[in-house]
């Protein structure tokens, strides 16, 4: 390449870089100002005891270092919220993924009819407004007049106070969350299933493999990468449980549906203990980060084999 050509080329490249920045600048600016900056501010606030006194007069603010974090870790309510959240994740994610996978497998089957109708129907709950459907579910879960208890009573089970009994409130929330969300992952997994080459199945069928064997040795391994990613993202998402308890149970009864994020909301917007609320949020973030890291490492290890 001749020298002058190189110079011209690099000048054009620099020019194009500038244009590129113009394309991304607006979006990056919004993200920086309205997301990154508040997150950093939240970290700073979590090191102070910002509360309504400080809201009234900033001189009432004290920098307390890690005291918010220490106090949180010593508060039984925090551990209860953490326990509730773990319960939700541990029970909800397998149920949700199982439902998504099952639905995707069914939809992908060659024997399925009216595929696009079923696909739409199964996906419909995802697009609904959580407030609106929570109203419906609150009613369906009603002790005396709810459909769920009516259905259960027809098989002889006594009416359960789903939203008033501390033992059953979280299962009710889990059921609701699974219903609302399973369609989303179903579509992703369906895409993954449709990408598995047919020849593999043909070959297996010729070799006499049963449907179950085909599932176990072809479908699941081929689906594993996508399944793994979906699982990671679903777990991260489920740790952020908030809307469902907010609308359905307000964290009760007896704080059995209080999630970590709900605790943050109460500290922050109900009592305006912003320092403590920010500390809760960051603890949650660290938790999600750690769990995600563990999972990705495990996944990478598994696929490296």
């Amino acid at each position, binding site marked *: 390449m001749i020298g002058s050509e190189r110079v011209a080329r690099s000048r054009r490249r620099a020019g194009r870089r500038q244009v590129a920045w113009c394309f991304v600048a*607006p979006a990056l600016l919004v993200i920086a100002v309205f997301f990154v900056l508040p997150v950093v501010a939240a970290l700073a606030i979590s090191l102070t005891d910002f509360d309504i006194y400080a809201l009234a007069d900033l001189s009432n603010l004290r920098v307390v270092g890690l005291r918010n974090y220490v106090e949180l870790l010593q508060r039984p309510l925090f551990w209860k919220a953490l326990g509730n959240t773990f319960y939700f994740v541990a029970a909800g994610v397998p149920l949700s993924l199982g439902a998504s996978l099952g639905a995707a497998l069914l939809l992908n089957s060659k024997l399925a009819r009216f595929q696009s109708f079923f696909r739409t129907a199964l996906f419909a709950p995802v697009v609904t407004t959580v407030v609106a459907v929570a109203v419906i579910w609150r009613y369906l879960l009603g002790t005396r007049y709810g459909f769920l208890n009516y259905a259960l009573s027809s098989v002889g089970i006594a009416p359960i106070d789903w939203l008033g009994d501390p033992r059953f409130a979280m299962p009710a929330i889990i059921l609701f969350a699974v219903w609302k969300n399973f369609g989303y992952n179903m579509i992703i997994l369906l895409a993954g299933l449709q990408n598995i080459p047919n020849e593999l199945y043909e070959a297996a069928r010729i070799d006499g493999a049963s449907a179950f064997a085909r599932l176990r040795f072809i479908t699941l391994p081929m689906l594993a990468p996508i399944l793994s990613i979906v699982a990671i993202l679903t777990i991260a998402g489920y740790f952020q449980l908030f809307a469902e308890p907010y609308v359905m149970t307000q964290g009760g009864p*007896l704080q059995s549906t209080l999630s970590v994020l709900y605790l943050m909301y109460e500290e922050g*917007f109900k009592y305006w203990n912003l320092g403590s609320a920010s500390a809760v949020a960051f603890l949650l973030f660290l938790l999600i980060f750690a769990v995600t890291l563990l999972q990705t490492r495990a996944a990478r290890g598994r696929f490296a084999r």
Partner: protein
Amino acid sequence: MSSGSTGRRATSVAGPPQRASPAPAGVSEVAKRRAWAVAQLALALVVVAGLLSSCSRHASNVTTIRFWAMGREGEVVTALVPEFERAHPGVRVVVQQLPWTAAHEKLLTAFAGDSTPDIAQLGNTWIPEFVALGALSPLDARIVKSTVDPKDYFSGIWDTNVVGEHVYGVPWYVDTRLLFYRRDALEAAGIHEAPASWTGWVKALAAIKARAAPDHYAILLPLNEVEPLLALALQQPDPLLRDGDRYGNFESDGFRRALAFYVDMFRRGFAPPITASQMSNVWTEFGRGTFAFYISGPWNIGEFERRLPAELQNTWATAPLPGPSGPGASIAGGSSLVVFRESPVKDAAWQLVEYLSRPDIQLRFREMTGDLPPRRSAWRDPALANDVHARAFRDQLERVKPAPKVPEWERIADEMRNVAERAARGQWTVDEAVRELDARTDRILEKRRWLLARASRD
């Protein structure tokens, strides 16, 4: 910012980047300027849209008063507004209703966001909190020059509006809690008078429970309400907080007695350990005799009169709350009207307060809501004086005590409710409960202690 249901997230990771083959291209200054113009235009559009939607409040010569009210009062006060507007031409009142369950949050959020209304209905236990925030305008000077006469108000009620040396609100209606009971159930159990002391009360409860069906109870004490326990606690000589309201005093004998009495009602099966929402319809169940005693407030006079069938109207009555050794105290509840410091129309807002505080307007308000007026002169009106159910309230209102006037009270009351629920459900003993409550209260009050220490140092 998406905060829809949990679990919606991105779906895959980035693929390997493709390399574009380098090629000549031109970038002109014009293009760059155009890009920034587009970005600025977009942002400008957004800001304009935002500004447009926050319309000016002084369009033309009309003064607009923004009034936030809760619950039933919020629904009903709009009917009183037209007369006020007629008497004050050029003034418009815009009423916004808030549900009680979200009102406290919304008011605090409005304060934090500099978007408080001009005048609001405020639960009187919230007044110390909003005074500490500096959100309310002191009303002493205005009261002196107006028709609002402090001596006409029940002293316990007026006192809840006084924080430090100033008055920050004018009571709008009073709320206190006392006994609603089924007289026929009591008669059938051989008791001919409402109990006046704790011992008499326990006797009545035991007698009723002994004759009640298995799934019926003697008294309903919903676990999501803190007011019954608070009333019992206020009847004690020991204050709820000590040392200038710096520490919790729940381990005192007085509160222990109150909590033990409360918890006993559940332990002995007099009351079901449920929340109000678990009893599908409190009024119907009262009518069905599922429980005979209910500690509630004035609004239920109207509700029971409306919802119970005619033949049951003679069977129920109200009575003052029994105390440890005779008629006892109860909570000094109710709402006040406050004017916010940041309001640009404080004079007009005060006129609305004065209007709503007129005894005749208060009586009309009472007709619409069942809320009881806080002025003794209003009580002389025959409509109230002859109301047999309201008589007990008139008596009780002379024996009301306010809750501690600390900004953190709402929070402490929440903890009281949580702890009492656990004790009632048998998870904690009374000793464990009061110790836990004191620990939580002390932690909540830590900032207050620090502020007071700092103030006394300066």
